[in-house]
């Protein structure tokens, strides 16, 4: 059975992130709980004091250098906070689902949902993507847990690409953003689905599951006293980790969002092939949430519908925020291979779909 994907044992070089100094768990629960609360409190206090201190020094230095008066810095920090505030609920939703998969879903249950042959599991995963309403931040941790629970990596990755692109909320938003032209919504559905499934199949044939290295270090599920503890533990770990990479992605996106003026991009619109590549690149850079990108696309009126379709197909599949989160969940060796693959497939699928439908 191909579904139960067996992972190679932990290799030596992975050991560097294993903290061998961690104290072994003490069986006596009451003491542990009390000490845990006290330790955490002390720890939190220490963190708050040191962070405040460092921030104060850096902040004062920047203040005297007129840093905060700069309009660009202000806009940049507004966009940065905005991306994170917007993404946070979906990140929590995604990690809650990933924690629930880890705690309550057995490989046997998933094998009833996904066909045992990965070639068929990939399109099934694509179709299941229609069920998870939310932005792309939700789908990365879910995909990670699906792999950890035994779904073929190619199928889980297809789910990760499909979920943010073709869920009902996104499709309705696209329908509203292009009034009188429902064909744009259809084209988006077709192109995004093709992108997800084709990328999954390519990964199945050519991809090396061993580069999902970071996952191998966390994937072994821990056995806790109750499933609820497993849920809380895994959700929290996924949340903090994915959140950290969301911060990196949001930071990069906010800087580029401010540096690159959307209002002065019209000069490229007339050049057919270049305009498609250009809007695809813009989608990677802007990292707007997939529920909003249709409205940005509809406002880029100088560009052809096919170029704007590429913007909407690429954005939910790969952007700076997603690249950072994939690096965090699956490791840099994975994301540096998977991101270019996704981008190429997405641009091609959007171009071909656009040529036929738009």
């Amino acid at each position, binding site marked *: 059975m191909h579904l139960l994907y067996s992972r190679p044992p932990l290799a030596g070089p992975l050991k560097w992130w294993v903290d061998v100094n961690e104290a072994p768990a003490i069986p006596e629960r009451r003491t542990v709980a009390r000490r845990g609360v006290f330790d955490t409190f002390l720890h939190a206090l220490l963190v708050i004091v040191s962070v405040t201190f460092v921030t104060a020094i850096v902040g004062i230095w920047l203040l005297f250098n007129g840093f905060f008066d700069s309009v660009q810095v202000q806009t940049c920090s507004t966009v940065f906070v905005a991306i994170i505030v917007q993404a946070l609920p979906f990140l929590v939703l995604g990690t809650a689902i990933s924690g629930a998969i880890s705690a309550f879903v057995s490989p046997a249950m998933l094998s009833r949902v996904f066909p045992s042959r990965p070639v068929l599991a990939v399109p099934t995963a694509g179709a299941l993507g229609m069920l998870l309403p939310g932005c792309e931040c939700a789908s990365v941790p879910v995909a990670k847990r699906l792999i950890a629970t035994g779904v073929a990596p190619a199928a889980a990755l297809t789910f990760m690409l499909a979920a943010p692109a073709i869920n009902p909320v996104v499709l309705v938003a696209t329908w509203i953003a292009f009034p009188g032209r429902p064909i744009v919504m259809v084209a988006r559905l077709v192109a995004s689905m093709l992108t997800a499934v084709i990328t999954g199949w390519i990964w199945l044939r050519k991809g090396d599951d061993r580069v999902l290295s970071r996952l191998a270090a966390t994937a072994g599920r821990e056995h806790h006293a109750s499933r609820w503890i497993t849920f809380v533990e895994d959700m929290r770990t996924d949340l903090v980790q994915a959140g950290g990479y969301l911060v990196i992605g949001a930071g990069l996106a906010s800087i580029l*969002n401010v540096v690159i003026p959307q209002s002065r991009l019209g000069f490229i619109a007339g050049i057919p092939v270049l305009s498609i590549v250009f809007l695809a690149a813009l989608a990677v850079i802007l990292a707007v949430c997939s529920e909003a990108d249709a409205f940005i696309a509809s406002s880029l009126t100088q560009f052809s519908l096919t170029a704007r379709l590429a913007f909407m197909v690429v954005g939910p599949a790969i952007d700076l925020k997603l690249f950072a989160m994939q690096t965090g969940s699956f490791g840099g060796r994975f994301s540096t291979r998977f991101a270019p693959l996704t981008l190429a497939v997405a641009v091609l699928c959007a171009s071909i779909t656009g040529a036929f439908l738009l």
Partner: protein
Amino acid sequence: MKRRSEITITIGLGLAAGSLLRSGIYLRYVRPAMYPLLAATAVTLVAIGLASLLKKATPLPDGDDHQDAGPRDDDPHPEHRHRLNAGWLLVIPMLVALVPPPALGASSIGRIAALTLTSGSYTQPIRPGIPALTLSEFATRAIYGHSLADRDVILEGFSTPSPSGGWNLTRLVIVCCAADALAIQVHVDGAPNPGTSTWVHVTGRWQPASAGVPAIQAAQVTITQQPNDPYE
């Protein structure tokens, strides 16, 4: 990353989200419709943090009813999740939330693309009296119909200099968050510029577009405060 660091960050993040909600500052970044989602998020984060705090996780030895997906026999440290982690970076947005940056305004207009208005909306006659219209409604009606003729209306927005001279009344429209803001502008005639990025109420009448931008002939311009929700 240490378990207790994760707990600290989870609770901190929940509290930061809660404080942005309580003060209403979240409206500088996202739509008002996000309130219930964000509230649920804040509660969930704090709850997950507290639950982890009160219930110390003690991994059981292998061999219970869980079916494990990966080989683990060779791993002497079951709690091998304490690796270096980007999770600490979540402290940055928490700190920024302590000194929240302002909403997007006049300074970002040069960068932001204009909203494309669509013909399908606002087909009913406008309300009687002197109605307050959103800039989207005014501009849509101005472009696609004549339902504004001979009617006084009130518009709210901030002032930005117009490239063709004079000034525009401007509002930013967001769909999800401030990262996807688009601008909507109405040219104001008949009143001097109250000063760039000043929030005003403009009372006046529709007039034919000026250089492709919908226009209003102002009878009165009143300076006002930035509304709680600065976006449309």
